[in-house]
């Protein structure tokens, strides 16, 4: 008995967020669901909690097929979802939040509800005053409130989506203890995370997702390297790229402190030479994104300096970085790169060098046709950008880059692209090295990092935990570092 997901498909336009997922969660187990951002975990959990309905597939709970058309249905079926941001109505008191989702319309017995809530809290070691306004609760306490609420509503399956983001170590310990005792009582718990050590701490079984598919399942404990390998994919190490002589220093980041909100206060330094490619590895949100934003002038460092081609740009405006030929391409192509509703031609006009007041549309169209052809974009000069596939959007972004480029900063340059597009993108990027462009990119794909970088910086919890030479390192070494264990610690452990 337990919860069974059978062949779940969910597409958003051309994006296959869930592409035939089958998972079985036995009653009374703590089941981990691992995967990088964009792997499809959240979509799957939203399907399971009735938020999205699947395009196809079945959900079977205790041998009975269930239909979930809304979150209401899911709760009725006994599936409770704890969202990443606990859905608490802040101006309400704790007890009002507690009773808000209860079925039925009119009768509201606060006294009885309070007693029942207290009893649940006592059982799982939580404590909060029913009459405090819930905005005074910490994120951790809001989660606890949400958990007792879902239990009160009769949840038999509890889904937790990245529950440890933003809570203290103490609260995490409390949460894990409660989850363990819940599973002993027969609750099935699905724990969604991209943090290896937590899954290793808590779960009895783990499923790994990647690109909308299940890529691995294992009973715990499993060595973290194995999990990293499942998450990031096995590496075929081919470094068939042409080597380019590196020039003078292009970008110097000197003892920068990032204020990521993570605890680490250690500083990071990096020197990038012309024509060099630096890969940034690490779990999502370990500091790579902040680092790129600092390098691009989108964000000022808390401390330290950023120098581009010998010019100190610390604290300068983003546009000063642009003027120094530093360009930043974030991961969200439609959110932070392209402009929905505008055509390809209009994009080229906006990014082009012609600054004259009146637009020569005939010329602009000709140039766009030419670029669409050069960059093999599947679309026409009059296509709006949202009608393009992810690969073609990325091609367009590359086509919009200026000719003169000193430093190119990219987040996930090939995320969501098919292999052909990904190879093509890197061909373009590597060609730019010959003009002396330095490239710094963050990626969740170890293969990509090893294949295209000269050096790899591994981030862990807001700092650089290791710098590796891409030609001499290997998957295992990176995997260990991504998991937060430095090579030295591993050595001393190995000598026991």
């Amino acid at each position: 008995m337990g919860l069974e997901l059978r062949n779940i498909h969910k597409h958003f336009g051309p994006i296959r967020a869930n592409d035939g997922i089958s998972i079985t969660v036995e009653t009374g187990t703590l089941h981990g669901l691992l995967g990088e951002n964009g792997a499809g975990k959240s979509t799957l959990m939203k399907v399971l909690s009735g938020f999205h309905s699947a395009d196809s597939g079945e959900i079977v709970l205790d041998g009975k097929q269930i239909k979930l058309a809304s979150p209401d249905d899911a709760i009725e079926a006994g599936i409770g979802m704890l969202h990443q941001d606990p859905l608490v109505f802040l101006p309400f008191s704790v007890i009002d939040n507690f009773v808000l989702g209860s079925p039925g319309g009119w009768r509201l017995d606060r006294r009885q509800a309070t007693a029942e809530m207290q009893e649940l809290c006592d059982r799982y070691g939580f404590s909060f005053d029913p009459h405090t306004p819930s905005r005074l609760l910490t994120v951790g306490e809001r989660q606890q409130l949400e958990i007792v609420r879902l239990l009160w509503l009769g949840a038999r399956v509890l889904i937790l989506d990245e529950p440890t983001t933003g809570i203290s170590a103490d609260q995490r310990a409390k949460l894990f203890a409660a989850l363990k005792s819940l599973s002993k009582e027969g609750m099935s718990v699905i724990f969604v995370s991209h943090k290896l050590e937590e899954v290793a701490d808590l779960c009895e079984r783990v499923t790994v997702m990647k690109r909308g598919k299940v890529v691995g399942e294992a009973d715990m404990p499993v060595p973290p390297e194995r999990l990293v390998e499942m998450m990031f994919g096995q590496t075929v190490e081919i470094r068939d790229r042409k080597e380019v002589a590196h020039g003078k220093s292009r970008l110097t980041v000197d003892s920068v402190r990032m204020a990521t909100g993570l605890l680490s206060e250690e500083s990071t330094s990096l020197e990038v030479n012309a024509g060099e490619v630096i890969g940034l590895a690490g779990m999502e949100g370990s500091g790579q994104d902040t680092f790129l934003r600092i390098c691009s002038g989108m964000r000022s460092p808390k401390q330290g300096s950023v120098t581009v081609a010998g010019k100190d740009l610390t604290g300068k405006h983003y546009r000063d970085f642009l003027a120094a030929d530093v360009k930043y391409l974030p991961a969200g192509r439609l959110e932070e790169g392209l402009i929905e509703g505008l055509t390809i031609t209009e994009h080229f006009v906006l990014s082009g060098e012609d600054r004259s007041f009146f637009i020569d549309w005939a010329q602009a169209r000709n140039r766009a046709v030419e670029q669409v052809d050069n960059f093999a974009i599947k679309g026409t000069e009059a296509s709006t950008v949202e009608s393009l596939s992810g690969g073609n959007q990325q091609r367009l972004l590359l086509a919009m880059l200026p000719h003169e480029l000193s430093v190119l900063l990219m987040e996930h340059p090939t995320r969501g692209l098919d292999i052909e597009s990904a190879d093509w993108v890197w061909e373009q990027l590597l060609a730019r090295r010959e003009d002396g462009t330095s490239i710094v990119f963050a990626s969740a794909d170890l293969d990509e990092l090893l294949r295209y970088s000269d050096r790899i910086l591994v981030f862990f919890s807001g700092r650089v935990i290791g710098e590796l030479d891409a030609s001499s390192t290997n998957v295992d070494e990176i995997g260990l570092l991504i998991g937060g264990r430095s090579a030295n610690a591993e050595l001393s452990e190995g000598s026991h």
Partner: protein
Amino acid sequence: MSSYRLTNLVLPISVVVASAVGLLVLAGTNPWDPLQLIVEGSIGWPPFEAGKSAKVGDTVMVWVPIALASAGLIVTFNAGMWNIGIEGQIIMGAIAAAFVAREVSAPRPLLVLLTILAGAVGGLLWGLLVGVLRTAGGVNEIFGGLGLDFVAISFTTYLIIDPWARTGVASTSGTDIFPDAALIPSLSDTRLSPLAIAIALLAIGGVWILFRGTLYGLKLKAVGANLRSSFLVGIPTNRYLLGAFMICGALAGIGGTVQATGFHFKLIPAISGGYGFLAILVVLLARYQAFWVIPISFFFAMIAVGSSQLDLRLDLNSALGGVLQGVLVLSAMFGLGWAAYRAKRQLQEASGGDSG
């Protein structure tokens, strides 16, 4: 922005006609008479008959400020801003023009030019204020604009009952009539001013060109469609937002000038006539297309002028004109929204067919 297609309009138009007829039947009259009266009261029946030029003149002079404000709003809407402060911008334009009209003496052509410029500057500054509140202070432009509307309205009343009060009379009926040299020139015996019409048409044409053929317009559109991407492309987004408010404010301010020096010939408390809010509806109905502003704002001007006939002739309250206006707009928006929803559904069904 999506362009108009005639087939998309069938549904909205039927909804509009149905609700107009429904409303008039509810008001206890047959639907034809009031409609005919509105037409007669605004442009004459049969339309544009000789001898009715005064009426036509009034309607056209109501059309001018609505059209100017609408042209300005196309700019702010394209920049992604809801410029509810447009009423205040019309009013401040009128106040600035009234100041010049009262205080400056110059030959007529020069004085008229000065009142128009003053109106443009007054509206521009009031619009800029909304923009600054938004970009520097993080005040949502809807709330900032609404607040500044109230300030402008109260300021007009203050001017009329205190510093600019008519000599010996404490009344909210308005200031003294402006000197002749400050009035915008019009055809004899009517308010119809070719100069005002020319300015309105120029503004509409200018806005059309702005978004059709200039880099500035394209950047405004980009800022409105995606602020973040625009910033990353290197567009100084705040400067463009301020620019949009300034252009809109200036055009609205000229509209206020025309109201003061071409229609009322003095400053009155309700100098904006609510035409700013009306213009928001015009632009929404025109779907941000400059050309469509011309007929749609004329239609609204007809209702505004023509409905004054209702109580005289049909024993219906003339406020029914306002109700009619509101119902027409809401039903048109409903119809347009419905048509858009259906089109989207059809598109989804067409593309979603292979994913099941």
